[in-house]
């Protein structure tokens, strides 16, 4: 451990952008719109907002507070607060492993986005038929060397940012990219408003549909709010540890969470009008982003510009989240092994690159050709599923139980109110949420998602 003071964010606004950039990731663009539509529209949206307020914000604040209190990253937080009880460190480790695994396949998907960004700029997709567009995507996915190239480039970019440190790297680039992300999203949203599909899109997303809204939709909303706030991945521990005692963390949690909700809804209202204008079925995942949208963009006026903007948005959203993943793993390694930042950033990126190779080659089937048959999903999807069903919820659960039941109440109260303008009453609400409500709901999510109990 170095003797010199820990590097902090230079300002409130820097922290704000870094946190939003981390939270707004690829999931917001491809998972969110689809899940909203499938799970009861406005009702689901309401459930999502409620979950974010009741569960997301408290956990978000808890991670930040623990990080700031100890000035350590996730694993260090627990070994400092609970030196004799190594069990709690598990929460830190789960977060670090989650971030590592996510980064390994995230950069493959973001790499495809990079490829589309370049092909949009060069106008390559203009005038293609729908079949041709999906053919291009299949060609890309099943081309092992191209996938590896983009995977490598994206990892390299992320590494360089983390390499340069908290202020000059993450904060600096988050500020630039999150702002441009906002600007691009807003521009695309305005454009979407002019499309005839805006009406059906609003209906699809905002119309309360009681038939498709079930109890499992509530859990889906909860899982999504965890995911979109990047909780349970150790990220907010590290980011909290880069803030000082003057920062109003509870307030910050509220602001960031609402910003994420707004971005998510705006993203959905940008993507679906395009889909509905051409009478397409709304779908999720890679099919939506890489097959439906490029085709539709090419038929719109100003398609080259729109397409370029959209895929730059995609890449920026990926980058600002990816730097958080690499930073989390790197900062924990720096503390555990005493590595320098440069060494940590380099080794961690190298490891995520190597571990991402099977994901990059998942489409071509060169490596692990039988994986799909054994697991009934490819390597990338297996990792994604494992992280989001098990690692993130379990890590979040342990953190919550720790704050609610193990950590001394006075200490958490002191930390909560430090630098904050919030009333002590808000602390009580937060504290009881952490004690009962949040752990109970997370356990329900785990049971439902793992298939142990089916509530429908």
């Amino acid at each position: 451990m170095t003797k010199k003071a820990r590097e902090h964010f230079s300002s409130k606004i820097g922290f704000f952008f870094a946190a939003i950039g981390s939270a707004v990731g690829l999931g917001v663009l491809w998972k969110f719109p689809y899940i909203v539509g499938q799970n009861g529209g406005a009702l689901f949206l309401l459930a999502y907002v409620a979950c974010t307020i009741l569960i997301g914000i408290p956990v978000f604040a808890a991670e930040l507070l623990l990080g700031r209190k100890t000035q350590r990253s996730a694993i260090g937080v627990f070994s400092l607060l609970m030196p004799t009880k190594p069990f709690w460190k598990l929460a830190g480790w789960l977060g670090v492993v989650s971030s590592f695994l996510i980064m390994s396949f995230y950069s493959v998907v973001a790499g495809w986005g990079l490829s589309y960004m370049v092909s949009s700029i060069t106008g390559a997709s203009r005038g293609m038929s729908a079949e041709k567009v999906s053919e291009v995507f299949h060609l890309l996915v099943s081309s092992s060397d191209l996938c590896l190239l983009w995977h490598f480039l994206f990892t390299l970019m992320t590494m360089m940012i983390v390499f340069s440190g908290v202020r000059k790297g993450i904060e600096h680039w988050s500020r630039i990219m999150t702002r441009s992300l906002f600007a691009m999203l807003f521009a695309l949203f305005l454009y979407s408003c002019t499309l005839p599909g805006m009406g059906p899109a609003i209906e699809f997303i905002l119309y309360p549909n009681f038939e498709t809204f079930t109890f499992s939709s509530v859990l889906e909303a909860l899982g999504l709010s965890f995911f979109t706030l990047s909780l349970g991945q150790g990220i907010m521990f590290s980011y909290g540890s880069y803030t000082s005692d003057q920062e109003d963390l509870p307030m910050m949690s509220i602001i960031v969470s609402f910003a994420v909700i707004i971005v998510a809804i705006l993203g959905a209202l940008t993507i679906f009008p395009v889909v509905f204008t051409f009478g397409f079925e709304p779908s999720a995942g890679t099919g939506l982003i890489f097959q439906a949208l490029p085709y539709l963009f090419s038929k719109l006026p100003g398609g080259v510009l729109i397409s370029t903007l959209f895929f730059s948005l995609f890449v920026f959203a990926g980058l600002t989240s990816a730097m958080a993943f690499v930073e989390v793993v790197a900062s924990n390694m720096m503390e555990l092994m005493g590595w320098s930042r440069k060494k940590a950033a380099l080794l961690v990126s190298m490891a995520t690159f190597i571990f991402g190779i099977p994901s990059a080659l998942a489409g071509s089937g060169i490596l692990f050709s039988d994986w799909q048959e054994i697991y009934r999903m490819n390597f990338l999807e297996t990792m994604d599923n494992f992280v989001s069903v098990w690692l993130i919820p379990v890590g979040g659960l342990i953190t919550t139980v720790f704050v609610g039941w193990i950590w001394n109440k006075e200490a958490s109260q002191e930390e909560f109110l430090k630098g904050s303008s919030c009333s002590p009453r808000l602390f009580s609400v937060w504290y009881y949420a952490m004690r009962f409500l949040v752990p109970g709901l997370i356990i329900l999510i785990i049971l439902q998602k793992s298939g142990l109990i089916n509530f429908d």
Partner: protein
Amino acid sequence: MEHAREHWSSRIGFLMAAIGSAVGLGLLWKFPYTVGENGGGLFLIAYILAVVFLGVPLFIAEVLLGKKTQKSAVLAFSYVAPKQGSWKIGAYLGVFASFLIMSYYSVIAGWGMNYVLLSLSGFYTNLEEREIGRAFSLLSGSMSISLFWHFLFTLITMAVVFTGVRKGIEYWSKIMVKILFVLLVILLGFSLSLDGLKEALCFIFYPNFDTFKGSSILEAVGLAFFTLSLGQGIMISYGSYVGEKEDVVKMAAIVGFSVIVVAMMAAVMIFPVVFTFGLQPDSGFGLVFQTLPYLFAKLPMSMLISTLFFALFVFTALTSAFPLIEVVAANLMELFHITRHRAAFFTALATFVVGIPSAAASSGAIFPEWQTLFSSNFLVTIDRLVSVWMIPVAGLVTSLFVGWKMDKSIKQKEFAGYGALFTIWNVFLRFVIPFLIILIIIQKSGVLQ
């Protein structure tokens, strides 16, 4: 090495590491089957006697040799008998056995890891029966996926050995042995509620005079050595991390007792599942990776049971894999004066490389003619070579060496307070154990029936 040798931080640390090492995969798949095939209750009595009268004495001999010399196997032998270098063959054989075991052990343990992830990935939802058996043939038939898990398991083991005796092996053995025990108790509790319990208990405990033969006794002795991880140099290294004041005899008794208890628990846990569905008790990979998942799928909460079982499997494998790497690394450190980090890294790299043909054994991607030439695949051939020849011979040499070559007064000190036990122990090491091991080798190798 100028600075003091790293020791276990506590007695419980040594015990946990030793029990973790002894309780290995063999206990999960070899033990229950062997018991059932060799006369049930009678064999069980033979096994317990073998552990108490042969296993524990040899265990004491190995730990004592390490403790007195404060060296790992090879240097321990040359320290006691500097002028008679040929004794060292016992040490080299043991260390080499550990090396070879690790090479294929991590392939099998890697398959276990695969099943943990598979269970957690919704393998049991909407599953057709024939897919279960197919999953294992696909897995073992795919060299790249087997290598992936082989690599991950070797990496984890290396990381632990890399960190040292106290912070690595002792720390993680303590945690994992505890978890292992809890998992075993949970699964056992579940098995006790199954219909097949009575039949399973009969199979395991009923004394069956028809199937109990002379060779069953030798089988019991071999199993006793195997389940105590003797003849692999492991307990010599672990003994060398023991402080001067510790009571070796007592610790050996505790380890022996624990191994017997865990072995019984494993047998009582596995067989009720098999009998509930009226299947034939089988052994080896087939039982663990095909029969059991097939049966788990029929049980309520199959995902949970299967995850817990394979987690148990992986933890069992890990606590036994630490010493396999540690033994080789520790000997390399002493022989070539290299650092722990370097030794752990190169040992793990070497076992990974040597394990590649084992990972490719079923797919036939490497050495496709092996199966025809040796009438068993690469993995099974190595397993047989190690367990029929190397481990028994290493155990034989160690027994004779400690019995005849080590200074009597040094040995006797360890038995202070145990009265005549020392004389009996020494006679066992000098005559009884070597004689029985020679019989085992003759029988197993097929020289005599």
